[in-house]
């Protein structure tokens, strides 16, 4: 196989990952690393660097649209970025200390968790009362546009959410993923924010979180242009196409199918990690 064929195959694979990730809301980044390591036999360090770059591309691309619609809670995002960026740097440093087998097993666990979370019922948002003193001081309570007009919401349990975000940041820096699933749990179930706000705000933070750890990966030489080029462009195009189809296509059966794909990839990652093939 020549570089030309390899690059085209990577582009097609990344396009499919981006499209499915965007259609199902599970994110394309989460399958990129298994795709690169298991299918294309790329070294896991390169795979993590490549994934991190692609995560910045898709999250920035999507955030551009959401921010302009006024759904994203920018103050909440800025505040929680304190937690995710510090976590991301710790994660990136940790990645040099732990073995690649450990990373592979942990990756499998996070994959299964991400797929499982998307099927959970989320807690109801809170819209009455005063909110906690901390959320008032930080000006986190806000409103978002719905078909029935602007709807207010309150932010609960700021400290608990902050700690969850810190963990999400560590996972992001360690594995080179956006860890959107963990961020959504922190915001939906802990801080009780409406789903639409939490997903867009999580996406808004992913780029900055990844930018915090990418410096470490860049200086270690984990970011290869030959790999990043087709993967970044493929995922970006796939995610863009996905956002266009989203409004018309039925996605519940697709989501189950994609979750099954993730489950298989997770088991294979863990198996390879435990047998020290990665």
């Amino acid at each position, binding site marked *: 196989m020549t570089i030309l064929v390899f690059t085209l195959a990577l582009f097609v694979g990344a396009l499919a990952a981006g499209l499915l990730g965007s259609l199902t809301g599970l994110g394309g980044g989460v399958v990129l690393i298994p795709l690169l390591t298991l299918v294309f036999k*790329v070294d896991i360090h390169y795979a993590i660097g490549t994934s991190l770059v692609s995560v910045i591309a898709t999250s920035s691309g999507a955030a551009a649209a959401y*921010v302009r619609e006024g759904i994203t809670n920018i103050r909440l995002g*800025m505040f929680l970025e304190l937690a995710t960026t510090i976590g991301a740097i710790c994660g990136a440093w940790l990645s040099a200390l732990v073995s690649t087998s450990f990373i592979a097993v942990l990756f499998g666990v996070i994959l299964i968790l991400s797929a499982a979370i998307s099927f959970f019922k989320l807690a109801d948002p809170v819209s009455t009362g005063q909110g906690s003193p901390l959320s008032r001081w930080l*000006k986190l309570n806000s409103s978002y546009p719905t078909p029935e007009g602007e709807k207010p919401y309150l932010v609960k349990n700021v400290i608990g959410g902050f700690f969850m975000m810190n963990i999400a940041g560590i996972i992001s820096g360690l594995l080179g993923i956006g860890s959107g699933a963990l961020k959504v749990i922190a915001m939906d179930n802990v801080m009780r924010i409406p789903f639409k706000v939490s997903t867009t705000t999580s996406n808004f933070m992913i780029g900055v979180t990844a930018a915090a750890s990418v410096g470490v990966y*860049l200086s270690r030489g*984990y*970011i290869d242009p*030959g790999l990043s*080029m087709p993967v*970044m462009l493929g995922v970006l195009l796939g995610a863009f196409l996905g956002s266009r189809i989203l409004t018309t296509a039925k996605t519940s059966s697709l989501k189950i199918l994609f979750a099954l794909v993730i489950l298989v990839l997770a088991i294979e990652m863990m198996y390879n990690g435990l047998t020290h093939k990665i």
Partner: protein
Amino acid sequence: MSLLRKKTTDTDLEKVIGQLLRFGVLLSSAIVIAGGMIYLWRHGREQPQFHVFKGEPEKMRMPGPLFRAILNGEGRPIIQLGLFVLIATPILRIVFSIFGYLLEKDWLYLLITLVVLAVILWNF
């Protein structure tokens, strides 16, 4: 009244941030595509060797050697430049927010944003 004014500055900031993110992603994609064409033209028939980790040479990690390699007409450093632009996009977004909070005189968020920026830049 003051609440209304605050809301408008917030919306303006949201618009600027949205435009910035879109522009950054498009610019970096364009550079990556250009570099990718040259890379495939020059190296397309060779064998890929990504299954072993070697680490990138200095010219892919440092801006100085990167620019010298670009002037030599190499494709891979041009792609890497595009990736640098991509990485700079969310960082620039933070810088814009700093100006926004300064205009709003929101000192608490100015401080939070400055700390986030410091944390990110500390690692480059």
